[in-house]
């Protein structure tokens, strides 16, 4: 099985350690991993802002880099970027038959990280150890468009030492929403604060998600308000070398 990594731009540039953990976890399962170096960004920032033409440019580039039959799967450590490709590329190209076909061709093969582990590899137990009490935050696209809500939680329950706890209104958006976080900052932060209050109530010391952008937002607010909560991507929790390498 040939698996291409799709590392979203902000993981590439801001939190590359998430990508590194993804590689380690996949390799530990015997997956041969490729990283097409021409990749950049899926186009979501332009798309969410209504700049569809510019987003189409990004999408065409993505299809050039990952399209065709070169890879069996494209794995991405972000529910929201996965949705952009699998769900919104067909939407963007709905009136352009040629591109639509290419987009639909790749759509089913682009899989969010935990979805790939649980549903393609069929593995939910990785022999990981982690001391802590954690809540899981499911990104909105992952929950609603992808419907991958239970898989990451089952995976977390198999982590030795980790206690997964529920939290209030867990289905509520964290308030990131791409450019929404910048255009409507006060409301966006009020949404984050509601999550943080629920986090405090849950007694968890760790927040885990499969969406680096939600983590970026919540961590940004936690740090600003002086919280000590650990914020991690699922891949980092599962990383076989976690704790040994920074």
């Amino acid at each position: 099985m040939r698996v291409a990594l799709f590392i979203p731009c902000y993981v590439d540039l801001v939190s590359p350690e998430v990508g590194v953990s993804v590689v380690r976890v996949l390799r530990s399962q015997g997956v041969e991993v490729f990283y097409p170096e021409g990749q950049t960004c899926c186009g979501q920032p332009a798309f969410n802002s209504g700049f569809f033409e510019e987003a189409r440019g990004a999408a065409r580039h993505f299809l050039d880099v990952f399209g065709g039959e070169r890879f069996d799967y494209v794995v991405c450590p972000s529910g929201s970027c996965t949705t952009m490709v699998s769900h919104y590329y067909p939407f963007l190209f709905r009136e352009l038959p040629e591109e639509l076909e290419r987009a639909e061709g790749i759509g089913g093969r682009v899989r969010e990280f935990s979805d790939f582990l649980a549903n393609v590899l069929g593995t939910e137990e990785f022999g990981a150890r982690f001391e802590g009490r954690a809540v899981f935050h499911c990104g909105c696209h992952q929950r609603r468009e992808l419907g991958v809500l239970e898989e990451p939680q089952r995976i977390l329950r198999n982590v030795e030492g980790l206690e997964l706890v529920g939290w209030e209104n867990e289905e509520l958006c964290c308030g990131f929403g791409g450019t929404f976080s910048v255009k409507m900052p006060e409301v966006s932060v009020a949404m984050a604060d509601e999550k943080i209050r629920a986090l405090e109530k849950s007694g968890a010391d760790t927040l885990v998600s499969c969406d680096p952008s939600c983590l970026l937002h919540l961590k940004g607010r936690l740090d600003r308000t002086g919280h000590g909560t650990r914020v991690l991507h699922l891949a980092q929790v599962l990383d076989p070398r976690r704790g040994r390498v920074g």
Partner: protein
Amino acid sequence: MEKTGTEERARREGLASGVEGFNGRARRALADPELHDSIALFTRKTLKGRAARLAELPDAPELRERAYHIKQETMANLDRYLGQMADAVEARGGNVFFAETGEDVVRYVGELAREKGAKVITKSKSMATEEIELNRRLEEEYGELGLEVVETDLGEWIAQLAGDAPSHIVAPIMHMNRHQIARVLSGVAGEPLPPDVKALAGFARRRLREKFLAADIGISGANFGVAQTGTVCLVTNEGNGRLVTSVPPVHVVVMGIEKLVPRFEDLEVFVQLLARNGTGQKLTVYTSFITGPRGADELDGPEEFHLILMDNGRSKLLGTEFEEALYCIRCGSCLNVCPVYRQTGGHAYGSTYSGPIGAVITPLLKGDREAKDLPHASSLCGACWETCPVGIPLHDLLLKLRNRQVDEGLAGKAQEIAFKGFEEAVERPALYRAGARLGRVAQRPLVRDGSVRRLPPPLSGWTDFRDLPPLAERSFRELWREGID
């Protein structure tokens, strides 16, 4: 509470005035802890009820599908169904008027009031009449008639007394708690009333009873209109709807043309969905079916029945990519689940319709310029689409509206340049990487203790309230090249 007419109008038309956008209004709401508590209380209760009532239905998802398809069919043949509806109403002795605009509705009702020598008009709750500000305009434009237009839904009445617009489609004064309500009603009573729900309701009942008996005309909305039979269906929880539609000699229905369903049996689908999703009830307390004026052998009902079928911008959505917005049955459940609405309440939207559906239909009905902010007042989380009983993809419609603004050149030069640059960079990996290297250098003076704490506008929107991690020393691509073990 004492507001001048102009102030009140400016507030209601906040969007049109362009003085203050969503952010400004939201800021005020965010600073109001009482509002926050009221919203939390209401939404928690309603959503719990909704979940329980839907769980009782073995076929809830199927019902949703059916609702969507019925609406789709209705819109595809709207002309024909409107004709059927009109014929059926006229056959039963009612009058039908097609109103192109809100103006037309106001004129029709105003002239009717003149003809009847009406003084008191009672109303039951109707978003369509809120949309066209019927009360204010009747009182202003037909000032010489000295009309008194009284809302009789308890919440609507209190909002009217407070000079306030409804802040929720289903629960108009959801933003007020009982202390605030007691203050409003005390002002009317001329004596302090206790913040006790029973006492306040008792006072309202006594006052409104006088109005019910004095009314010359009763105005209601319509939850559904059945084309096949010409029946208007009203679902309510207060008895006021029945008093408004049957006591005065004249009953006027103001109905948006999209409220049509083709057949009587379609109501089985919609009435259930509306009650369960809107308030968490199996059925509302009253479900009335009204077909024309009182018949010769009937004991009650009005002598005259007028059905106003209001377009007001709706028909221009037919056959477009925004048509699904017309499927809405105004259950209000997308408001309750919307994380933005839950923080800000309805007034932040500055329009009659708030929450996700308001953010969609306000620009569609009023124009993109008038409601430029609204399509952006969403994180696009999709909770609205998930909850909508008719399956309207609200978040996709919001995206399409954002795109329409871009096409119309409303997004602004700065954004146009930024996203053109974005496209250039993501299509050319070398440029993308050069940009990243440049960013790493440029960020140096901004990084303190491993975080970026302050960025210039527009990015200050982030850093005013949140830390931002700096660009990493080495990108993933560089780490990959070095080899990951």
